[in-house]
């Protein structure tokens, strides 16, 4: 197990009238190579949960294991942060250097890499997010477009050479081109580089299309955990929590209720179209 949470609970501002239990007894683990989608309504504790993955928050109860070792006692915080790269919401707000190169190099510098190694890492990190090294390395991050800034910020985390990448709503506030750019690169990182990815998103279409496994968090507890097909079949429960269901899943479930024999686990336009056409042909025969 790459990441393992055992009965983790967390409360903000404990022992005050403002105390708020954000995570309640969560048990959850992630295997190497998985692509996990973490969804949940606003305030359900997603951002709080991911801060436990790299030791930014310590659980009030329970424990967090990385590669089977306890954060803090059995594995150092710095090593955890190298292994589990966390990209926060609006990561472009963390950029501070005057060139893209220096900003992406911040992580490797902190890990005390040699100069050649740093250059190599920056080069490959920028490539992973689809930015041309020679075109971008000397530009100021503040002159880039929103989508490019965000990709530079993600590259800054990738340059740490993590084995798992955790992203908190990486596509929020971007236009559809910016979104697609980021998502295709994430997909490639998972398929081609074998990077484990945990993706937080409010866009269910995005989640359904990309991930192998969906974890639904509600009021600090894990409500569902399974393949997109299994989870999105619980359409009514999800709607009650205030979550959407992918449009295609919605359509297929409704057709199924009306007696059309269509599979429920399709999330790509072409596949959905073909299956509906098939079902209609079968019926007219």
């Amino acid at each position, binding site marked *: 197990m790459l990441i393992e949470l055992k009965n983790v609970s967390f409360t903000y501002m404990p022992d005050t009238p403002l105390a708020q239990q954000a995570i309640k007894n969560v048990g959850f683990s992630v295997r190497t190579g998985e692509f996990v989608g973490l969804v949940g309504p606003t305030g359900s504790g997603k951002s709080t949960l991911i801060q436990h993955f790299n030791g*930014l928050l310590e659980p009030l109860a329970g424990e967090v294991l990385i590669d089977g070792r306890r954060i803090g006692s059995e594995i150092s915080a710095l090593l955890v942060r190298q292994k589990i790269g*966390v990209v926060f919401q609006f990561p472009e*707000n*963390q950029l*501070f250097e005057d060139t893209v190169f220096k900003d992406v190099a*911040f*992580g490797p510098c*902190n890990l005390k890499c040699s100069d050649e190694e740093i250059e190599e890492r920056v080069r490959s990190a920028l490539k992973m997010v689809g930015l041309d090294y020679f075109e971008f390395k000397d530009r100021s991050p503040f002159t880039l477009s929103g989508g490019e800034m965000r990709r530079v910020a993600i590259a800054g985390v990738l340059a*740490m050479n993590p084995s798992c990448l955790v992203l908190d709503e990486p596509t929020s506030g971007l236009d559809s081109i910016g979104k697609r750019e980021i998502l295709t690169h994430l997909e490639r990182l998972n398929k081609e580089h074998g990077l484990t990815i945990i993706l937080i998103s409010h866009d269910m279409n995005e989640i359904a299309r990309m991930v192998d496994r969906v974890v639904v968090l509600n009021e600090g507890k894990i409500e569902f955990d399974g393949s997109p097909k299994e989870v999105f079949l619980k359409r009514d429960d999800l709607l009650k929590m205030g979550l959407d269901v992918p449009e295609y899943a919605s359509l297929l479930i409704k057709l199924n209720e009306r007696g059309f024999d269509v599979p429920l686990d399709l999330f790509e336009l072409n596949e959905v179209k073909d299956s509906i056409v098939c079902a209609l042909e079968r019926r007219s025969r």
Partner: protein
Amino acid sequence: MRAFSKLTIGQYYPVKSLLHEADPRLKIVLLFFILTTLFVVNNFLGFIFISFFLLMTILAAKIPFSWILRGLRPIIFIVLFTLIIHFFFTAGKPIATFGPLVVTEEGFKNGTLLSVRFILLIIVTSLLTFTTSPIELTDGIESLLTPLKKIKVPAHELAMMMTIALRFIPSLLLETDRIMKAQVSRGADFESGNLFKRARNLISLLIPLFIGIFKRADELALAMESRCYRGGEGRTRLRVLTMRHGDWLIGMVTLLFLIMAIFAGRL
């Protein structure tokens, strides 16, 4: 990162109580009266009166004593220092000796009185901030300063500046926390390392923070202007401060106690 969760700026303690609902202007004025009394009173009897009164107030305000004690934590050192200086370095009638050091009666009395006065002073002041939200506080201050507009004191502008500053403190702390976490995730270390390394890490926090602050200030100015804000002239208010019967009663009781304390305290 840990430090921020323990910092309780403004220290407002959100419960419903008689004192929480009282007019902020009343509370500010009474605070001044109590502070004055604390400096007029000069013996233990007077302080006993005031302590009893404060005890009642704390109970009425539904503030747990642990919070009051927490507010006193930063001044423990100063109080101890005051006590020691006074005990051992005041000339007068000796009452006890520790080796070469002599405690005098005057030193004992002055030191204790001064410490008690200081502790009570902090308690009263924190009672105001515990029971009054920052917004109410600035509203109260603005209202009290209004008569001074005649002598060109910019009461509204001062209050607006305070409101905005108070409004931004929690956001800034949150923003600092967020950026710090993002940089720590990239291997930054804000807690150890040599001076050069720390300075470099601090830059990674300060630059994004300042960019954020300027952006926010710009947006706020734009938002205020687009909603036709043009200073305090003729502006009506959402929350109109009113003195209710209960408030007058609180005021009377407090004044009564203070007068008794002053009489007792000057015997």
